[in-house]
């Protein structure tokens, strides 16, 4: 492929920790060949060269928390062929979406002596709340091999091959003992999307859901089970649902039910929402 014909890749950041875009730089063995295959024309964390669009593929990290960022996102969408949101912040608001369940002015007063200097929205929301997104890659952080797969797939015009099953499937494949059944640990594996390789159970701890909620997750029944049989308190349930992907709808629904102290069998279905 002639150098000028290479797909143009851009990386953008909103409110985030930089960890998901860092995953690209953490591809130590692959980075230089990726840079041959794609023209990385906008990646401020890595380069002073920041070319204007249009871009063939845009990777977008972070959540939308300011009016200015909302406008910037709209411009990015207009300039981009495929727009891929990467990570828990971009796909489910990130940890900072905990503000969505609090009074943000209280938050600002807690952290800053002069909250009036700040400009921030009441909420932290996923990219797909504002613009059309071609693909959402889960994870806090994303898995670098999944990120490579997504980038290379869009670069060659095919859909990414990313498993949408639960962490439990990876856990079984890895041969882990089930930490929920055997040890009674509060494991969110059954409702969490695969991708991490069932890392936490492999390290003897329950999954805490950093890869976000899987499609058709039965959030209510799992929480109900953990509360009934494994000593999970309402407060623990609420905190585990409002953590790394708090704006994911199936988690929000059950967290709200926890708020009402009303996690009952009849009301807890997630309704098949996609996280």
């Amino acid at each position, binding site marked *: 492929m002639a150098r000028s014909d290479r797909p143009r890749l851009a990386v953008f950041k909103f409110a985030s920790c930089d960890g998901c875009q860092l995953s690209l730089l953490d591809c130590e*063995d692959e980075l230089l060949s990726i840079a041959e295959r794609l023209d990385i024309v906008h*990646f401020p964390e890595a380069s002073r060269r920041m070319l204007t669009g249009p871009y063939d593929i845009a990777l977008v990290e972070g959540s939308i928390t300011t009016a200015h960022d909302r406008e910037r996102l709209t411009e990015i969408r207009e300039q981009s062929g495929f727009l891929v949101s990467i990570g828990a912040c971009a796909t489910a608001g990130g940890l900072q979406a905990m503000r969505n369940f609090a009074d943000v002015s209280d938050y600002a007063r807690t952290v800053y002596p002069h909250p009036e200097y700040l400009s921030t929205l009441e909420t932290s929301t996923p990219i797909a709340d504002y613009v059309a997104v071609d693909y959402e890659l889960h994870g806090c952080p994303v898995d670098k091999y999944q990120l490579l797969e997504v980038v290379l797939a869009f670069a060659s015009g095919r859909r990414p091959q990313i498993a949408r099953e639960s962490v439990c499937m990876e856990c079984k494949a890895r041969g882990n003992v089930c930490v929920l059944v055997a040890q009674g640990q509060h494991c969110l594996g059954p409702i969490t999307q695969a991708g991490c390789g069932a890392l936490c159970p492999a390290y003897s*701890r329950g999954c805490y859901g950093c890869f976000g909620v899987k499609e058709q997750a039965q959030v209510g029944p799992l929480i109900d089970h953990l509360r009934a049989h494994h000593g999970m308190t309402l407060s623990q349930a609420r*905190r585990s649902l409002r953590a790394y992907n708090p704006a994911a709808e199936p988690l929000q629904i059950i967290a709200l039910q926890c708020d009402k102290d009303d996690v009952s069998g009849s009301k807890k279905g997630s309704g098949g929402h996609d996280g």
Partner: protein
Amino acid sequence: MTGKDIPIRAGLKTRRIDVDYLARVEGEGALMVDVVDGELRDVQLKIFEPPRFFEAFLQGRALTEAPDITARICGICPVAYMMTAVHALEAMLGIRPDEGIRRLRRLLYCGEWIESHVLHIYMLHAPDFLGFDDAITLAREHPDVVKRGLRMKKAGNDIVKLLGGREIHPINVRVGGFYKIPAVATFTALLDELKWARDAAAETVFWAAGLDIPDMHRDYEFVALRHDSDYPFSEGRIVSSRGLDVEMAQYPNHFAEHQVPHSNALHSVRKPDNTPYFVGPMARYNLNRDRLSSATRKLACEVGFDRTVDNPFESIVVRALEVFQAFDEAIGLIDNFFVPARAAEVVPAGGGVGVAATEAPRGLLFHRYEVGEDGLITLANIVPPTSQNQLTIEEDLRDLVASNLRLSERELTMRCEQAIRNYDPCISCATHFLRLQLRHG
């Protein structure tokens, strides 16, 4: 990066350079330098990174959740955040993990310092010294240099991945110790690569010392931890080059955070005179050279660094020396592996006030928690290294611009960016994008 002539006031001619995004830093910020009629008027380092309010949403969370939550402040140095939270909460609860856990924690720190420092040396800072936009274009002319850096970075990440579970936001750190201690053989399997990497780190030191390093000296107050015997990671007292020597818990009595209208990051100052201070590799190095391993000291002598370093552009060499030190220590820790009695100590019930400071790759990181008897956090205060260095960066830029007005706008802009990157600023931590707006006439 455009330069154009625009009049700002009658009779004065002002040129403005806009760099819409300061690259190769972690986060979003801007620099504004005002020079009118050949005189420097103002320097402001602006941090646009939107606030994420970590200290607020830590309130009401269980103390055991603090390590995983605070990790998300920074994708590049999550271990530092996790471990500072762990140390603060263990101090509060009276938990004292054994020597095996202490050593594994040092090993984890070694891994993070390596991946973070090597990323900065090779991918973020070196392109400034060699006149490239990034490491990818640098690799076209110097492929062996960049490949060496990438392989070293991977060796550091391999330590974090083994002990932490993954490179970014590790999952194996908990209050009291670890969830699981990997088998000894999995550590010794890293040794060959770590030994290659230690040699590569020595080559990196010579290579960095041979770069064309701008000359600049200022009288800084360096602040870092200092430990009885070891190069500081997470133990010791807070000391400074101007005689401060206090316990970690005394930090709030000697340092304060101020908010300025132009930045979403708080600025830290030394009490009582609100003066700037300097944290990070150079501060650690100047205050702890006698705590380096004999091999690191020997290497430092060979490149003429057996001295106080007060030129921030030489920080790239100091970082390389710290990378060597970290590989050297990591190899020692694995060679003399000390299996902990248990993976973690039991976390007792109760609350109180917990305070700790550790040395993140970018410098001193301070955490303070107040916890209720129910184990839920009621107050959290986190002071990252970049907000502590922010005033010092502004003063460096003031000095640099004032003494380099003869440079072309492009050269001066590049030099200012390089000077900011001397501090490896992590703006995601300090709340991140640097937009360089240099106006001068």
